């Protein structure tokens, strides 16, 4: 009850200073009807009015509008919204209407309306029970810097128990106060310091707006000081951030290349169809999601864990088929594998195009893969984090197989001397087939991850094939560690060059550097040395 009262109080203050000359919102339905229009400017005004109306359904209505669940009956402009279960609720009474309303038209939203909604909902949810919501509200106020929320802010700050939420509230207040010309100087100086502590780009922008024209000398000095601190911090941060981007690009390259490190690096097949194996993995993800979407929407977050083994199987099976029908006739003729796998690649592309169409296919991100983890300004996107971890996991697993299992030993033996391996009793055809299937399967797994950041289209594979070869060769053919290091160093180099030279020139420079680097180490980063190599 107290909370409700408080919101009303806050919004009345808001309205009093606002541009809206609301005829006191005694008639709730009348207020609501202001939303029943096609004119965005009117809707914007209506939002403020509804927020101020104190209607029991106000928050629900605004939330419904934000999610495009709000409609009005053209005939009488009565508002209805859909609740969580999908049934219509009469906004005026906040109850289910007796009969299903008909002739409904949705209330349209555009960015302007959305912004107004965010601001309105922000102030309304300052007291929400969920601390996350309160933080979101504080951030909304921080952004809108609405002077009218000041009183509300003061009061919630006084009551807030949660230290984190409190900090956000205080930052929001500081944002409002800093540029409030008539605020006391001490408050404004304190606000500048507060923002300096917050230390992000937004604070810097706010501090930058302080000038002699709108503040006292002391405030200006404080703001300058705080801004300087932020700039220094941000410069440092951007290096860290760059390293992160580099790492994450590196992990993408690693994933793209790692299957090739087997089929090409270990087996010596110039596997031009590698990219298509990656593509098959991505399409498997698509199919899995498609089935989940229609059959079991609740499992959506599980779509990737389900897709990973399936993608492995699909690509591995196709790989197996290719090995058994084509590649196995080409051992000892490595250069010709280029020709044959190129042919395979063309056919696979076209097959996928025939089966799924030429367009991109939608692969969604599960909830744990979207969003940003803000570590005090250092932003880690969850999607990328997962991809890095996933890339490393695949790498470790593969390394384990190659180095630690008897299959791995047999693989290496067969590749180094097929005839002798057979003379040792190793089933060379089986090992060949398994190795190629493993490499293909791993490529398929990579496709699951890449479907999260890139197009799922028949051309997916083509866009990674060149980089994949580059990584494997740069790292040193036949050395998994080389592939890891190659991928990560190319990723990092790329991301540190990009801000300096731009994306295009950066890439050109990187290629030139690679060409020069190979002169110094003609067998890649992790070159195998010694006599053993020359045989």
């Amino acid at each position: 009850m107290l909370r409700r009262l408080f919101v009303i109080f806050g919004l009345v203050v808001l309205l009093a200073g606002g541009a809206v000359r609301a005829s006191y919102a005694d008639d709730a339905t009348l207020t609501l009807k202001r939303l029943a229009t096609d004119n965005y400017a009117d809707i914007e005004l209506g939002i403020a009015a509804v927020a101020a109306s104190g209607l029991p359904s106000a928050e629900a209505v605004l939330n419904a509008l934000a999610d495009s669940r709000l409609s009005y009956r053209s005939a009488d402009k009565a508002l209805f919204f859909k609740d969580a279960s999908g049934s219509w609720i009469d906004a005026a009474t906040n109850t289910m209407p007796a009969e299903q309303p008909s002739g409904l038209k949705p209330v349209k939203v555009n960015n302007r309306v959305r912004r107004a909604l965010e601001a309105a909902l922000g102030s309304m949810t300052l007291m929400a029970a969920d601390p996350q919501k309160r933080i979101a509200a504080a951030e909304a106020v921080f952004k809108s810097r609405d002077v009218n929320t000041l009183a509300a802010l003061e009061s919630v700050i006084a009551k807030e128990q949660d230290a984190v939420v409190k900090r956000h509230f205080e930052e929001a207040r500081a944002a409002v106060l800093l540029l409030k010309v008539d605020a006391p100087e001490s408050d404004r100086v304190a606000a500048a310091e507060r923002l300096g502590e917050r230390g992000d780009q937004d604070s810097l922008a706010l501090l930058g707006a302080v000038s002699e024209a709108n503040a006292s000398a002391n405030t200006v000095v404080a703001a300058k000081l705080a801004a300087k601190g932020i700039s220094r911090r941000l410069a440092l941060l951007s290096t860290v951030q760059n390293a992160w981007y580099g790492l994450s690009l590196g992990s993408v390259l690693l994933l793209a290349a790692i299957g090739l490190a087997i089929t090409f690096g270990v087996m010596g097949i110039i596997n031009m169809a590698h990219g298509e194996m990656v593509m098959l993995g991505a399409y498997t993800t698509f199919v899995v999601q498609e089935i989940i979407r229609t059959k079991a929407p609740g499992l959506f977050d599980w779509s990737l864990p389900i897709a990973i083994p399936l993608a492995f199987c699909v690509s591995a099976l196709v790989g197996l088929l290719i090995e058994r029908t084509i590649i196995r006739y080409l051992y000892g003729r490595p250069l010709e594998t280029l020709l044959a796998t190129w042919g395979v690649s063309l056919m696979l592309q076209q097959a996928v195009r025939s089966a799924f169409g030429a367009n991109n296919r939608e692969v969604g991100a599960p909830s744990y893969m979207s969003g940003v983890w803000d570590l005090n300004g250092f932003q880690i996107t969850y999607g990328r984090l997962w991809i890095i971890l996933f890339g490393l996991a695949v790498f470790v697993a593969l390394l384990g197989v190659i180095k630690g299992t008897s299959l791995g030993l047999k693989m290496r033996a067969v590749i180094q001397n097929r005839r002798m391996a057979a003379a040792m009793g190793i089933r060379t055809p089986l090992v060949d087939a398994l190795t190629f299937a493993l490499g293909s399967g791993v490529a398929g797994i990579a496709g699951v991850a890449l479907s999260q950041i890139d197009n799922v289209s028949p051309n997916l594979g083509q866009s990674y094939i060149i980089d994949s070869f580059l990584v494997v060769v740069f790292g040193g053919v036949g050395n998994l560690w080389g592939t890891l290091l190659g991928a990560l160093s190319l990723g990092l180099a790329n991301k540190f060059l990009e801000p300096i030279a731009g994306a295009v020139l950066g890439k050109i420079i990187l290629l030139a550097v690679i060409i020069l680097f190979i002169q110094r180490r003609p067998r890649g980063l992790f070159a195998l040395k010694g006599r053993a190599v020359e045989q």
Partner: protein
Amino acid sequence: MLQLDVQSIDLFYGAAQALRGVSLQAQRGKVTAVLGRNGVGKTSLMRAITGQQAISAGSIWLGDQPIEAKQSFERARMGIGFVPQGREIFPLLTVRENLETGFAALARQEHSVPDFIFDLFPVLADMKQRRGGDLSGGQQQQLAIARALVMRPKLLILDEPTEGIQPSVIKDIGRAISFLREKQTMAIVLVEQYFDFARELCDSYVVMDRGHIVLAGEKSAMVEADVRKHLSV
């Protein structure tokens, strides 16, 4: 007991015939030496037995089974151990891994490297972690022999095993071959150019010339001058 029975096989490289109706028998617990000049077909014969080169006529029996239609790896799994000419170790595998490739033909419980191997070739024990390809020529040859022994073969084929090996180790190898013969578990076929070495070890011998077997017999019946005639240039 007759372990290997090669019955008049022919072998071609393209149009060129390398073996012409060659027959060869090897008994368990016996050493059979194969002698002959360069290019007469000794290695080709071994390749035929191990399945690395297909034959066009004749048959090959291992124990009581015909194997000429079997793949090379199947023959290895049936118990043929092979020390090829030119060593053919796996260059990028470590010495240890090279030895472990011999496990492929064995049941799981037999997956171990017998100790006597390191007694015979102590250098391999020192170099277990080194890559096979980095070893010196003679060390590689020792490794190749050891690797075949890991397989615990029923038929051991040694194609010029002493090539490039220092005299003291040759003596050791000689002792080892005697030792293996004494164990009576395997038949040994030894291809050798080094006449004295072969004569000392063998129980029976064949001499090849231009793809034919020109002399064959028990050691007791071996006449040095006859054999040397076929070995001279």
